[in-house]
């Protein structure tokens, strides 16, 4: 049991991601999560606003089912298998995070300053979450894919556009980590 409830090493989680992609291909579908944002907008009636949302969402119900399953998976892991999380981070990362103003780096899945229950009454935390999410939604739709579509599906099938997208992911991530992170907390 302990092998299930302990943190899983990269060489278990990585191949399971590949198996996820393979399973979806065998099922006649493909691995890509960010298109669900478009589907959700369509279900909400956004087809009246833009042609971009004039899609048949019923053909994409399977992907919403996949997301629903992944939510259940998060619940199973987060509440049953490993309710108490301490992420064993590199010392240099911990030092950096303390410098930024994170009190307990590695406690829980994400820092309480922005992701804890206090966030609901902290306007700054809400702004950070909303703005970060906005960039994720805008960027993935512009690039036509996220980590699953480009970094996994696209790189596995050796596509140059996906490599370019992944380079972009890192340019954006490094810029924020270097220049924005010190002011977030």
């Amino acid at each position, binding site marked *: 049991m302990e092998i299930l409830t302990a943190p*899983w090493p990269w060489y278990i989680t990585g191949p399971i991601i590949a198996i996820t992609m393979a399973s979806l291909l065998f099922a006649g579908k493909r691995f890509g999560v960010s298109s669900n944002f478009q589907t959700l907008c369509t279900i909400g009636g956004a087809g009246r606003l*833009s042609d971009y949302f004039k899609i048949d969402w019923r053909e994409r119900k399977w992907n919403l089912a996949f997301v629903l*399953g992944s939510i259940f998976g998060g619940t199973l*892991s987060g509440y049953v298998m490993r309710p108490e999380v301490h992420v064993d981070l590199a010392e240099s990362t911990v030092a950096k995070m303390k410098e930024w103003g994170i009190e307990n780096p590695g406690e829980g899945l994400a820092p309480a300053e922005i992701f804890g229950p206090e966030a609901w009454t902290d306007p700054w935390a809400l702004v950070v*979450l909303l703005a970060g999410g906005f960039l994720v939604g*805008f960027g993935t*739709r*512009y690039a036509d894919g996220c*980590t699953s579509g480009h970094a996994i599906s696209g790189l596995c099938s050796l596509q140059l556009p996906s490599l370019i997208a992944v380079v972009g992911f890192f340019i954006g991530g490094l810029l924020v980590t270097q220049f924005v992170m010190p002011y977030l907390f």
Partner: protein
Amino acid sequence: MWRFILIGMVFGVALTQGEVVSWYRITEMFQFDSFHMYGVIGSAVVVGALFLQIAKVKNWHSVAGKPFDVFRYEGNWKRYLIGGTIFGMGWAVTGACPGPMFILAGAGVWPILVAILGGILGTLAYAAVRKHLPH
């Protein structure tokens, strides 16, 4: 539908147990301080690429007998580089790409719902301005 819920569940458990959904791990990755995330993504790509190569040689098909539905990205580099960079900024801030956003909601990190709302707003904004953007 059940099979997709099941595949999603395995994915959600693996990403949570493997700490891929952790803001800390994503930040550590962008600091180049640990091999963990590179190991996760790297092994996923190597195993997945091998799978697709074997599938090609062995002529594997979907259970319905159709060729695998591998999406082909086309067109110019601009949308991939600019869109990718914008997404990367959001990925670093929220510590979550779209999959983990939903998984975190399941794991009880409720404020991530605000980021999901942001993702939906970002999608609407993209739809509104996309005709003016280089693609």
